């Protein structure tokens, strides 16, 4: 019921001319007003506020295993009839769902950061030329990874059914995270006397962008290969950061990437639990993905730049620096094996590419 205060908000009556008053205005039908699938819903904020997930009550919380409606009808609303179908490819829950998507969305919104103001850029200080060049080269490749993430995720989003809005909303935050990543690394490269370096070899990027078969398979490459590798690399860069600026960026990016990895792992877990036949395509994607990653890693540019950063310059790159690069690859292999175990993927260490195995690893330039 409207209160007196509400009544004051009503726009004052217009002063109409005689001609205006003669215009015939049809009586409002208001027949839409009693059309609701469920009315009287009063979701109350919980300890975490009024969260997206808490709205899943009554019919609004019914998340079907298949979304048959090929429109942009929000879940729980009454669909319009006669609407031309929208080209939505992903209409099965198993193809995109992760139970944690709504929580991750809230987390992404609440834990946001801004490179322009949350990073204390005044902490930057001049670095030896070799180290600055190496940092800028790594920033260039990280910018590139971020651009690919944006392009990839957004190219799939419009193909996802609106019935699974939690996933679509969370993925929107991952696109923003990736653009922020691009922004932060570009700013670092261009703020300390350096600039952008070489574009990386992009084998994994091409694989991801050309992955048109299914979102689950795309997530496999995006998360288990590109995402996990980037996460481990960022953690090592954090460990060897040269200023508070880099440390802050790496810390925040670690968190952003961790949310994407969590979504990916939980989606793959859900998909494998509800459609075990997906195991074959996931395994094939991993096989092709690792082959692409091997080619990328055989390119010396990223490897040498990382070794210079980890080794404190060109002099230390060949010994200490390259040793840490190998250690980083070992850590990535260990993280991948742990994730595979969690997902119960039939992968053994012997199946990993030689570049990721201590016993077989040979890199160009190795003696």
């Amino acid at each position, binding site marked *: 019921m409207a209160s007196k205060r509400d009544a004051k908000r009503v726009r004052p009556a217009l002063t109409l001319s005689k001609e205006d008053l003669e215009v015939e205005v049809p009586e409002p039908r208001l027949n839409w007003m009693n059309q609701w699938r469920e009315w009287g819903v009063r979701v109350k904020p919980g*300890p975490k506020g009024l969260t997206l997930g808490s709205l899943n009550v009554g019919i609004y919380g019914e998340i079907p295993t298949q979304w048959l409606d090929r429109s942009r009808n929000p879940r729980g609303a009454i669909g319009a009839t006669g609407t031309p179908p929208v080209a939505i490819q992903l209409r099965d829950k198993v193809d995109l769902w992760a139970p944690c998507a709504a929580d991750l969305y809230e*987390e992404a919104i609440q834990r946001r*950061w801004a490179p322009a103001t949350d990073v204390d850029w005044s902490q930057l200080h001049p670095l030896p030329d070799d180290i600055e060049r190496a940092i800028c080269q790594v920033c260039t490749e990280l910018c590139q990874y971020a651009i690919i993430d944006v392009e990839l995720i957004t190219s799939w989003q419009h193909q996802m059914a609106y019935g699974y809005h939690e996933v679509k909303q969370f993925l929107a935050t991952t696109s923003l995270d990736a653009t922020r990543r691009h922004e932060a690394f570009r700013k670092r490269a261009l703020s300390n006397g350096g600039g952008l370096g070489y574009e990386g070899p992009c084998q994994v990027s091409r694989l991801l962008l050309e992955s048109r078969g299914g979102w689950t398979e795309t997530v496999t490459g995006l998360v288990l290969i590109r995402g996990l590798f980037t996460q481990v690399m960022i953690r090592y860069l954090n460990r060897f950061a040269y200023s508070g600026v880099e*440390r802050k960026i790496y810390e925040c990016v*670690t968190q952003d990437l961790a949310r994407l*990895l969590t979504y990916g792992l939980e989606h793959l877990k859900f998909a494998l639990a509800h459609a075990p036949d997906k195991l074959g395509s996931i395994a094939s994607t991993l096989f092709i993905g690792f082959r692409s990653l091997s080619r990328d890693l055989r390119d010396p540019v990223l490897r040498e730049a990382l070794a210079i950063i980890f080794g404190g310059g060109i002099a230390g790159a060949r010994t200490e620096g390259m040793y840490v690069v190998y250690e980083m690859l070992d850590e990535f292999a260990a993280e991948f094996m742990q994730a595979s175990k969690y997902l119960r993927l039939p992968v053994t260490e012997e199946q990993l590419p030689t570049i990721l195995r201590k016993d077989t690893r040979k890199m160009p330039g190795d003696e």
Partner: protein
Amino acid sequence: MAKFPSVAWFDAVRDIYNTDDELRGAGSGTCNCTLGVQVGREFFQLTFEGFECSAAEKITKGKLDDCDFYLHMPAKDWRTMLSNIRQNGHATYNQTLNTLDLDRPEGLSTSTHNDQYREDMFFRYNQTLQFFFNASARINTTY
């Protein structure tokens, strides 16, 4: 002055962490997890809810099962980390949670349940956890 490790020490850090707005933005923000802390043979549980660390309690080893993940180090390594924080106002270089997790052969963060969704909260909330331990720079710690 508070002795580490003890509930009184964690409560003293909580008081600082819960009242400093600067520790809530810039990639930190709300945090919802149950963190275990193993210091040698002593065990503690910290509860993070929203913007606060709402509780600290001493627990038995068996109660680590209830924690989303836990940080484990011998008492001397905790002391090294906290001394570094006290000296610098925040953890530096090889004493950040990230670096300790990478450098230690057995890692820093783990769980009893191997549920990766819960274990990965260490990475998702890393900034908050670092801010929390950094807040210990503002109290006098005895061992």
